[in-house]
């Protein structure tokens, strides 16, 4: 393999016609984009960005899979994931016992995804959206019940999904989202 090599460079020289040529070039390119502008503004909330699978959005718990190991709470860098003690009745023996369950505090979460990645049973997953609205701060601290439901995604109810793809000529372009795309 070839290692990197240094290359001395100097600024391009300014020719005698630079003032004329440079201004003309700048104007031409301005005209080009005046006629054919490149726009990819998201008309939110009429449209919403359908994010790709694997996006680290809000987190949901699948309680049936959870083994109460507390790995997620231990690795959380923002102390957003916490274990709470919930008393319950054991089905087989009928005895009272206390179990630890994870809950999330969205006032603190930084969406690093460590908890989802560390969970040994895939009991946590990300939903691919992040534009969720809460009425007040207290609501952002979820309890075990609401942690199991995907948060309400208002934009998806009202808007049409679009997706951004890279185009060789125009950079980022907005295309309508086709059902089934990942």
């Amino acid at each position: 393999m070839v290692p990197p090599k240094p290359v001395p460079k100097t600024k391009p020289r300014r020719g005698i016609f630079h003032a004329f040529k440079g201004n003309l070039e700048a104007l031409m390119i301005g005209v080009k984009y005046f006629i054919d502008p490149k726009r990819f503004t998201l008309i939110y909330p009429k449209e919403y960005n359908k994010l790709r699978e694997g996006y680290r959005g809000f987190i949901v718990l699948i309680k049936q899979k959870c083994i109460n190991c507390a790995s997620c709470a231990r690795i959380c860098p923002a102390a957003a994931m916490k274990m709470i003690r919930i008393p319950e009745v054991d089905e087989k023996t009928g005895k009272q016992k206390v179990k630890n369950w994870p809950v999330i505090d969205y006032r603190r979460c930084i969406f690093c995804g460590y908890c989802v990645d560390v969970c040994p049973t895939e009991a946590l997953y990300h939903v691919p959206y992040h534009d969720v609205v809460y009425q007040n701060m207290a609501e952002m601290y979820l309890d075990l019940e609401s942690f199991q439901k995907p948060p309400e995604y208002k934009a998806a109810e009202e808007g049409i999904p679009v997706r951004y793809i890279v185009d060789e000529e125009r950079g980022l372009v907005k295309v309508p989202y086709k059902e089934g795309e990942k």
Partner: protein
Amino acid sequence: MSGFVSTRGQVGFNDLKIPGAWSRKIGKDLYEVFIGPQHPGSGHMRIIIRIDGDVIVEADPDMGYVHRTMEKLGEGREWIKGIPLYERMAIHDACNVTLPYVRAVEQLLGIEAPLRAKYLRVLLCEINRIAAYLYGFGIFGVFVGHSTMYMWPFGDREVWIELADWLTGARLTHSYPVFGGVRRDVPADFTNQLRKAIRYMRKRLEEYRKIYVDNPVIRARLEDVGVIPKNLAIELGITGPNLRASGVLYDVRYNDPYEVYDELDFEIPVFQEGDALARVWQRVEEIKQSLRILEQVADWLDKHPREPILHDRFWKTAPPLHKKIFETEGRAKLVPLYALLKVPKGKAYAKAETARGEITYYVESDGGQKPYRVRIVSASARNAIVFKYILPGHRVMDLPTIYGSIDYFPPEADR
């Protein structure tokens, strides 16, 4: 230059009315103007200048407005939690600023990332570098009043952010490298989109040249402004593209290669002039080289089949479910060991080339679950001193030009 008697407290404030800046008279024909920290073009930083008429006679960069005690916070949390923390120094350059921390801890653990993970790290580092340069261009453009150059790079930066988002799952705070590897493999079809983005960016750089860098109006404002002579650049210890634009060859990727940079074929452009225009050209040329690196990384990734991207020490304890998810989704799940990781006693030192220059980490462990000390010297902290030596002698009009061309980023400097 110096030697004036400060008459602090004897003269009324606001003798000189400058919108957005606080000023006062401090001597005959001498005014002190406070630029910032409320961002009339200074970022979260203040530059105190003393002006005689329109000419700056003295300048004092006054930083620390976004100091978040990063180093101290790092001491209170487990090793892995440092990654999302240090990332917040420069979120649009996230992979570059956290990589040396990861590498220093890897040194202490005595492990090295697998080859594929190294290529993936380089991939994200260069995507971040391009995005960070474009961010710098945008800010610079609006500083000199060229609003087209503000909109364009920010729009094109979105291309790279979209790619990074696709790769890591987050637009800016990727938290991508972890000890012994990275967290995700490239999704299917990623390299094709990457190649499209590379070809697009090459065309765009030519358009940038026409509308901005070679535009006679802009050129007149940038040329021979804020010249950092070669010996002064070395003396002040500045770093990154600013140093290289002054004719000094120093790039960590070249002088002390890390990851796979010594296997890639690219150039280190070194401009000689050291003025604001040379610094812009320096960045344009470096984007071209980053594109070249990305092309090679894309080829490499296409040629080589998927293999584990975490070091065996962590990967061998992974349950079958982890392996299945890696094969189907390309997501390398973390083993619970990461949260409880004990790093052997010792000291390590690592550095990397970020978009703004060299960043160095000194990491010390006492054998526990948390670092004993993490010392960070970031690139912007080293570049800030430039203002003190370069601004005097220039007109106030040149201040935004110089500030923009240095690409100073306060959150990174203040840590």
